């Protein structure tokens, strides 16, 4: 039996917001692949739950007439990665989610949970950052939109306030049309593992020239991050050994890796430099570039 002290099965988005606002310690439970693991370990920070599994509208994945892609916060990893809209327009999301856990975990876990739990290693975070996700949030003051840029504020921390419930991710057409992207997860095992370093890149090309590069990392700093210095270094450049090297050097201003039992800071830095080059090259190749 999980040591749950208080449990509320939300009947609507509004009901969930009210229940979350009414209890300082209340936490949302969606797929349960994090929350139930923590409860299994006796973590009392998670013993007052608002269950959103009855809110089936939050499972929706669709594209609207203007090309905005909406992904419900309660859609499972498997539902997202197998969805035609995602496979066609946002293949890097499918690629990233395929690296999470194993099939059973992907059949329960949600991208909403992966982003909102604030994990530094979240496998969906790089894709979210390079495609500049908007987050549609319902709170006590009504609905608002926040950007993924700045959403994470520290390990396990986000800008979400008391009563806030993420409803949908929205990807605007200008943030995916004309881009090609790639993700690489470096981990000790091929499955059921946490990233040592995760790297995602999206590029928009003008012939051989990289017009725009968006580069993101997980586990390279206290939050998932975009790498503005490295991106700028690659702007309007063609891919060569030299330009990739210059980008990798500029990257050191962007990242702040640390020592942990999984890997040393030096090894992480080595991975970051190596992956930045490899993943940027792969993103270009995915567009059918010349290299």
């Amino acid at each position, binding site marked *: 039996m999980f040591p749950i002290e208080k449990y509320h*099965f939300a009947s609507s988005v509004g009901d969930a917001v009210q229940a979350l606002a009414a209890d300082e310690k209340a936490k949302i439970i969606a797929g349960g692949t994090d929350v*139930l693991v923590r409860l299994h*370990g006796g973590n009392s920070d998670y013993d007052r739950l608002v269950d959103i599994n009855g809110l089936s509208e939050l499972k929706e994945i669709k594209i609207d007439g203007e090309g905005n892609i909406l992904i419900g916060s309660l859609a499972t990893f498997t539902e997202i990665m197998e969805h035609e809209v995602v496979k066609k327009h946002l293949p890097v999301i499918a690629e990233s989610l395929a690296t999470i856990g194993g099939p*059973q975990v992907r059949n329960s876990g949600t991208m909403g949970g992966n982003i909102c739990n604030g994990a530094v290693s979240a496998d969906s975070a790089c894709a979210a950052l390079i495609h500049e996700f908007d987050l549609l949030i319902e709170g006590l003051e009504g609905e608002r939109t926040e950007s993924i840029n700045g959403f994470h504020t520290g390990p396990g921390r986000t800008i979400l306030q008391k009563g806030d419930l993420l409803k949908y991710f929205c990807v605007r057409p200008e943030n995916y049309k004309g881009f090609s992207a790639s993700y690489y997860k470096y981990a000790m095992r091929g499955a059921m593992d946490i990233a040592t370093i995760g790297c995602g890149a999206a590029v928009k090309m003008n012939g051989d020239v990289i017009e725009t590069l968006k580069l993101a990392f997980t586990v390279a700093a206290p939050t998932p991050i975009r790498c503005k210095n490295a991106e700028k270094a690659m702007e309007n450049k063609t891919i060569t050994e030299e330009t990739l090297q210059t980008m990798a050097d500029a990257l050191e201003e962007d990242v702040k890796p640390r020592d942990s039992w999984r890997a040393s800071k030096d090894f992480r830095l080595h991975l970051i430099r190596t992956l930045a080059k490899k993943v940027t090259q792969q993103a270009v190749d995915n567009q059918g570039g010349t290299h």
Partner: protein
Amino acid sequence: MQTMNIKLTINTRKYEMDVDVRKSLMDLLRELGYTSVKHGCGVGECGACTVLVDDIPIDSCLYLATWANNTVIRTTEGECRDGKLSAVQDAYVEEGAVQCGFCTPGLIMTTTSFLEKNKGKELSREEIKTGHAGNLCRCTGYQTIINAVETASKK
């Protein structure tokens, strides 16, 4: 403690009951006698508790019993019909893919859903491994397990 009334089908049998909201689906199934569902790691890493919820494999240790409301659950017990093993179960026997046997019921359910999902598709050993990455065999009898999946896929 708080309970919720749920209706569900387990294999072919229908149930309606009040369940404690703190209970995992794994515990509920074991209490009802479906002891093929094994309590392994309890944290979604080993897959010994794998069951199908509406034909989708999940770790029942990381699944609240209340979430099973209005679903059809399949466990290894139900795959055997009228004393006859399913094609997957038969293939595990044929290939000797069982050592201590603790991981076997969970693996049977993963293979069952994997082959239903990939029906008619030519499967590589690599695809089979990826499709079974959520199940651990502590006896490390993986080669015979992959052989069993290959054999079952041709049945």
